[in-house]
């Protein structure tokens, strides 16, 4: 009986539902949605790959590829924090679902000369 006012208020007050996907709410500014990679800044230092707790980042130093496995990424933001070149950022929009598990391959462009020490 005590619940009665609440349910009646709900009935006449209209639903609280956000009509997703008809209307979509903008994600919050600093929400951790998905990893974005800037090919131009990456120098293939590999810190991100080493520090990633979910081994979601691979580096192919020969092909100069930076490989992200979106199916493994837990969006912890560590890669973005440790990246010395700020090549990795976290964007607020969540990653869309997919049918197939596929890695995303980027080509790092700001690669240092061979033999130079990779910094931390």
């Amino acid at each position: 009986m005590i619940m009665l006012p609440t349910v009646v208020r709900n009935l006449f007050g209209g639903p609280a539902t956000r009509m997703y996907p008809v209307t979509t709410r903008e994600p919050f500014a600093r929400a951790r949605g998905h990893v974005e990679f800037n090919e131009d800044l990456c120098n293939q230092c590999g810190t991100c790959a080493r520090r990633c707790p979910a081994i979601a980042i691979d580096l192919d130093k020969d092909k100069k590829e930076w490989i992200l496995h979106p199916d493994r990424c837990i969006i912890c933001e560590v890669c973005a924090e440790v990246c010395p070149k700020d090549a990795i950022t976290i964007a607020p929009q969540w990653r869309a679902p997919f049918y197939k598990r596929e890695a995303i391959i980027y080509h790092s462009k700001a690669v240092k000369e061979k033999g130079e020490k990779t910094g931390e």
Partner: protein
Amino acid sequence: MGIIATSRLKSPWIMHFDNSSCNGCDIEVLACLTPLYDVERFGIVNMGNPKHADVLVVTGPVNRRTARVLKNLYEQIPGPKMVIAVGTCGTSGGVFHNCYNVLGGVDKVIPVDVYVPGCAARPEAIIDGVVLALQKLAKLQGVAL
């Protein structure tokens, strides 16, 4: 049977199974049912029982004991059926990659139709995942969603 094909798209009953997830995705799946997201708008009802379900929503990485359960549940769902792996761990095992009792993603045990990434996957992403699954079903049946 056009009406049946159409109805299938309008009434996807889900069953949620938690493998050995951290609960994060589970509560987000549950949150989908609550007023703010209210997936019943799409005819989605959470059934507690594989025999009534059309869509199996799996969260968490498969571990060595839940693998058996997951397979059993999948077999008890009458066709046509879809499987959605929710969350990064359900997709690939994610952060638990080096845990000894974890086999990996859901697709190690049963075929998965849609993967919803995210740790934890947001309710919106889960709704997107269901829509994606329905699109696949619609395409299979040759009807418009």
